């Protein structure tokens, strides 16, 4: 087992109207890639921002702990936290335009980060910026370096963010949907780049994605979130091939990849009935309003996480021990 780099326990983040993250626990080992998948709006990005202590007000961390490399981040003074950010934990944001400065060329923005981290001259920083743009496969980097963010395509902006994260050589890299705007060829190259960096630096990688192809190819472990909570965790094989939680099962069934040569003119895609919003304000399991297996006790308490080996599930209808025992008895 790898040494733990990040240990999150019972993390809770609230906004006045809603709890974005509740009772969330997970860990990332040194050199490990943990993927977080889950419903849109389930709290993945807010979790990432909480780790950076960047939850947008009025939202705030109201409970739990975040231990990173021997320190408790929730208790760290702001100045110390600023040092951790960028130097030890870097983040690739989901929407690049919200974190790139529109009035500075990308060369300046990457260059500043290089100067901050490597203490080099402007001229060398510029050369490094060009090198990095090339590394993330941006064509004609020596010309692109003088472009402003709005002059780039969506996928190019995303790669600029990745280049900036790479400079930091962090211990933990949080990548929030880093390749949503990229076609498969460049996606593969960019993920290989992150993976090399992971190996070279023994970097922990927290990869938030809804692309199950990426999960299968790159993750060591997967956490599944639904309506602010973790509902399942396990190896990619377990999650993709034999998921336990009804939500994860629904997610797999909805994949157009699994639909083979289905076409909209013939067959609608399988949806999970209802929407995540019907879950807010309910007691009990967050998935109750949409779950085909729901029964009375599902409405009473939030299902406690149960695990067998490294596969964990939070569903009262699913008791891994009992099933394992049944299998053992039957066999």
């Amino acid at each position: 087992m790898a040494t733990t780099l990040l240990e999150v326990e019972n993390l809770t983040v609230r906004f006045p109207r809603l709890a974005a993250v509740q009772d969330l626990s997970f860990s990332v080992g040194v050199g490990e890639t943990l993927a977080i998948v889950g419903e849109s709006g389930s709290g993945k990005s807010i979790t990432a921002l909480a780790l950076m202590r960047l939850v947008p007000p009025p939202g705030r961390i109201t409970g739990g702990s975040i231990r990173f490399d021997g320190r408790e981040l929730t208790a760290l003074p702001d100045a110390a936290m600023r040092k951790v950010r960028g130097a030890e934990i870097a983040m690739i944001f989901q929407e690049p335009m919200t974190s790139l400065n529109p009035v500075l060329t990308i060369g300046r923005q990457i260059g500043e980060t290089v100067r901050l981290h490597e203490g080099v001259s402007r001229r060398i920083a510029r050369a490094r910026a060009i090198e990095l743009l090339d590394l993330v496969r941006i064509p004609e980097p020596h010309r692109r370096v003088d472009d402003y963010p709005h002059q780039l395509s969506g996928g190019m902006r995303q790669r600029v963010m990745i280049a900036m994260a790479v400079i930091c050589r962090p211990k933990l890299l949080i990548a929030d949907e880093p390749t949503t705007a990229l076609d498969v060829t460049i996606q593969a190259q960019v993920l290989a780049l992150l993976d090399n960096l992971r190996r070279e630096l023994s970097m922990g990688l927290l990869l938030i994605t809804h692309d199950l192809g990426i999960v299968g190819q790159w993750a060591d472990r997967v956490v599944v979130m639904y309506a602010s909570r973790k509902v399942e965790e396990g190896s990619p094989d377990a999650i993709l091939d034999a998921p336990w939680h009804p939500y994860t099962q629904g997610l797999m069934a909805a994949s157009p990849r699994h639909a083979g040569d289905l076409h909209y003119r013939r067959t609608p895609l399988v949806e999970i009935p209802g929407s995540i919003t019907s879950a807010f304000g309910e007691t009990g399991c967050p998935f109750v309003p949409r779950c085909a297996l729901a029964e009375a006790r599902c409405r009473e308490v939030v299902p406690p996480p149960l695990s067998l080996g490294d596969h964990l599930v939070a569903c009262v209808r699913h008791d891994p021990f009992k099933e394992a025992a049944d299998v053992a008895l039957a066999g």
Partner: protein
Amino acid sequence: MSLLQVSGLHTRYETNDGVLRAVDGVSFAIEAGETVGLVGESGCGKSTLGKTLVGLVPASEGEVTFDGAEISHLSPAALKPVRRRLQMIFQDPFGSLNPRQSIGQILTAPLAVHGVRSAAERRAQALAMVRRVGLPDDTLQRFPHEFSGGQRQRIGVARALILAPQLVVCDEPVSALDLSIQAQILNLLVEMKSELDLAYLFVSHDLSVVRYFADRVLVMYLGRIVESATYDTIWSRPRHPYTRALMEAVPDPLRRRTAAPLSGDLPSARNVPSGCRFHPRCPFATDLCRSADPALRSVEPGHEVACHHAEAIFAAAGATPPGAATVH
């Protein structure tokens, strides 16, 4: 007559460092009720093409005819009545939503502009739309920054559909969505289509989504359309070497780590290669390819390709391209 007819369209950006030919001579048509997929490498000009069609970026050359009227040279005022019928879902949802407007204002304002008089009626339509994209009722009172990435993307979908348009340019409309919400939004687009006989130009880098959702697929490379075919043809009989490379790169959850097949210098729209613009990366390139620019030509009914050697390559490689069996 086609709903949308694009001919010889060019969109150039003037930059400090020369002219960038983002859309470089594109012609195609979209029929009423048809879904046309648009795929191609990052930076090849998909968003620029979409924005040019809806009049957000001026065309440098060429014509765009929508429902019988030429629209590419209209002033913003003259374009206004057309905009109700011709909408766009933007790739960058946050950048396209006014941060100071509530979602209620964002959704009801276009209704007011286009003649829905009663405020109660506007509100009711906005609420119905919000529910259809799977967002909670209190969405209308909230502001764009209070939503997750995928929620904002769905607000963009709601805004584009609320005016009951005839054609929607969808620029990566489901890229930020998990599979179950993605299914819900795609099903919604299909429903709206049958209700309104809507047509879509559907930009996506996710080929499995395009395969499911498109009637016809356009493959774009460095500002040009290099192949156009029906969805089943493009998968079973892709002709252009670029299309084939694109399909081989599809990752598969059942296969771990796919290699990236496309190599060679990355293309630049500021410095378009001579002859066939794909030749520096094409394994089949000959002298002819380096000197002559191949035109988009028909190779079988409904199937057009811009490659000098389409027939020979196809014959040599066989009908089934490598990787096609694993695209599922």
